[in-house]
């Protein structure tokens, strides 16, 4: 039963009947009202939790292997007398992502940078949703879910624009491989599906076809991402830290810090 209390939509959920994946303390008592609940079939529960855990483990294993292979290689030596701080340089370089004025390429493309920020916030929120929905559904109140939904919707539009850019800008087109198109298309569809899924969730529909697609895509992501360019976030800290260490040590970066 749904009822409105002021501006907040409250969903009353009945006693959980399916084999529960929560502990005793989280079981609802009769008549208890919670803001949101993930009342789903056993099949969807399996997809949302055990399957995801196995896939997450696989992803973590692949990433560990990737990082191990990278760390096995000799790192950049620095035996010269330093003019700056390598550690501060690394931090400065890592923080590059929140300093659009730090690089000419972002300074001159603030709209592109804003897209990047929204897109990646949406990535975090969407990944977050795949955890929050099954594990802490009460966090996903309509207000919170609306924020998630808005970011997913914006990211969907940004994704469409990025696909268009990749197809139409000659210098981007000639460096694009099928993986580049597939990755951005996949993310865009994921955001689109996530947007609809969140909308239905807010309406109090935790198990819909859209939710199934959303979690099936999540499963695919966990298996596919370690092999695709989407895993760039694993390499990001390596690239930025090494850049920061080299040029921080040489006194090129963060001179005034």
């Amino acid at each position, binding site marked *: 039963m749904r009822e409105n209390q002021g501006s907040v939509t409250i969903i009353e959920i009945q006693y959980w009947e399916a084999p529960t994946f929560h502990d005793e303390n989280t079981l609802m008592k009769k008549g208890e009202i919670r803001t949101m609940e993930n009342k789903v079939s056993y099949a969807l529960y399996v997809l949302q939790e055990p399957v995801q855990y196995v896939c997450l483990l696989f992803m973590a294993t692949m990433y560990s292997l990737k990082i191990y292979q*990278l*760390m096995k*290689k*000799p*790192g*950049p*030596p*620095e*035996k*010269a*007398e330093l*003019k*700056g701080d390598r550690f501060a340089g690394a931090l400065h*370089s890592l923080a*590059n*992502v929140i300093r659009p004025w730090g*690089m*000419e*390429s*972002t300074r*001159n*493309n603030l709209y*592109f940078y804003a897209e*990047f920020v929204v897109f990646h916030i949406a990535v975090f929120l969407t990944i977050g949703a795949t955890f929050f929905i099954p594990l802490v559904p009460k966090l996903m109140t309509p207000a919170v879910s609306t924020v998630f939904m808005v970011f997913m919707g914006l990211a969907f539009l940004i994704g469409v624009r990025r696909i268009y850019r990749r197809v139409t*800008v*000659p*210098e*981007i087109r*000639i*460096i*694009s*491989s*099928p*993986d*580049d198109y*597939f990755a951005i298309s996949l993310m865009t569809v994921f955001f689109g599906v996530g947007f609809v899924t969140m909308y239905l969730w807010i309406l109090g529909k935790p198990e819909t076809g859209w939710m199934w697609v959303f979690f099936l895509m999540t499963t695919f992501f966990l298996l596919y991402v*370690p*092999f*695709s*360019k989407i895993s*760039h976030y694993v*390499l*990001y800290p*390596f*690239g*930025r830290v*090494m*850049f*920061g260490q*080299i*040029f921080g040590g*040489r*006194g*090129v970066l963060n001179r005034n810090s």
Partner: protein
Amino acid sequence: MADVAHIKPKDQQEQGPMKLGTQEGRKWPIKPEFTPEVLEEMEKLLPSKLNRIVATSLAGCIHCGMCSDACHYTRSIPEDKTLLPAYKADRFRKWYKWRYDWLAKLFPSFVGAQPLTKELAKEMYDKLWGGCTMCRRCTFNCPMGVDYGMLVRAARGIMCQAGRIPQHLQDTIDTHYNSGNNMAVPQDEFIETIEWIEEELQSEDGCEDFTIPLDKKGAKYFLTLNPREPKYYPLTIQATAKVLNAAGVDFTISSRYWDLTNYAMFNGIDSDAKLFASWIFDEMKRLECEYLLSGECGHGYRGLRWELPNWLGGVPFKITSTMELFAKIIQEGRITLDKSVWDGQRFTYHDSCNIARSGGVWEEPRTVIRAAVNDFVEMEHNREQSFCCGGGGGALAMPEFSQRRIAAGKVKADEIRATGATVILQSCHNCTDQLKEISEHYKLGARVMNLAELLTEAIVLK
């Protein structure tokens, strides 16, 4: 005139000019094309070049295209999209993916992987020798921190070791290897040149007591030179010596190994780079100097200041440059300058990529310039954001790519023109030659000068 006889190394006094360079002559076995044998050799070499930076840079590109406006090639030649840094690096990356990318084992085309074919290798040759100066401006504009400079150097090293390198560039390195300096200046000729320059210096008013000490043990600074100076630009040595003498700097030059250049930075052969660095290291030890002093040379400065300690595992002495020493001298009030001698001239300063972006030296030259001139105008992009002039990365030693090199200098030429400068200052010999060429080609009407030449005219001798 300095009494050179008594300062010549002992072995030289007894045996005449010593054989510099390595004992055996070497001619690098350059192959005319990418034969199956060359490709096979490259396949063998690839793993040895994949250190953590190179591997991360090869795997880390997300093809976002943010590097497109950062490169002087793409800015100057916008019609050629294949000059985009990511595209150029992809010529190497495709091969790397073919060998190492997990998904490429199943779906190579899907991730853009390609086996190393003759065609791919030819593209790699064209783009990574003739389409990149390793200036790292794209690196500074890459969200992922992809180090294009190191990536390109690794690719060049593989090609070179397998026998594919522009002939003239490798000749320069072979000359250094065989002669001890990259212009094959014999020791006796070098000593004579320094003597002659010293005489010229002493003939200037107020410079009668100035000297250019050769092989002076225990001097504070060991001044190293670019071979272009004794060969073609002796006045820059004279100018440097005048400033150092006027400031009372205790310095010396080695009669044996004085070449600060290290073109092995450009061909990616570390063993040669280490060898050239070790000669300078040995001279520092022999002369027992406190500071190794790099003359005005871009890659030479970076090679000595930042790479030499890494190649040799650390050094027990300090390393600095004339740019930094000139600034120190001025800040300490050790020389007096008359700015009015340059009145009527407008100056701008071109930051060499290896000195500024890869070396961290950009305020010191400005300290020098502001002390010596009244009219100084910055280019739109300056300091670590300066565009490469187009002459870096050994580009001047690759005549087969000269046309593209001059074309790539357009963005720099446009920025110089916008300043209205009549004099382009810089601190690098490769930049000197490139800037002279683009000044003439793009009709800038500006002369090119280094900092020592700037100071020598403005110095007021007491």
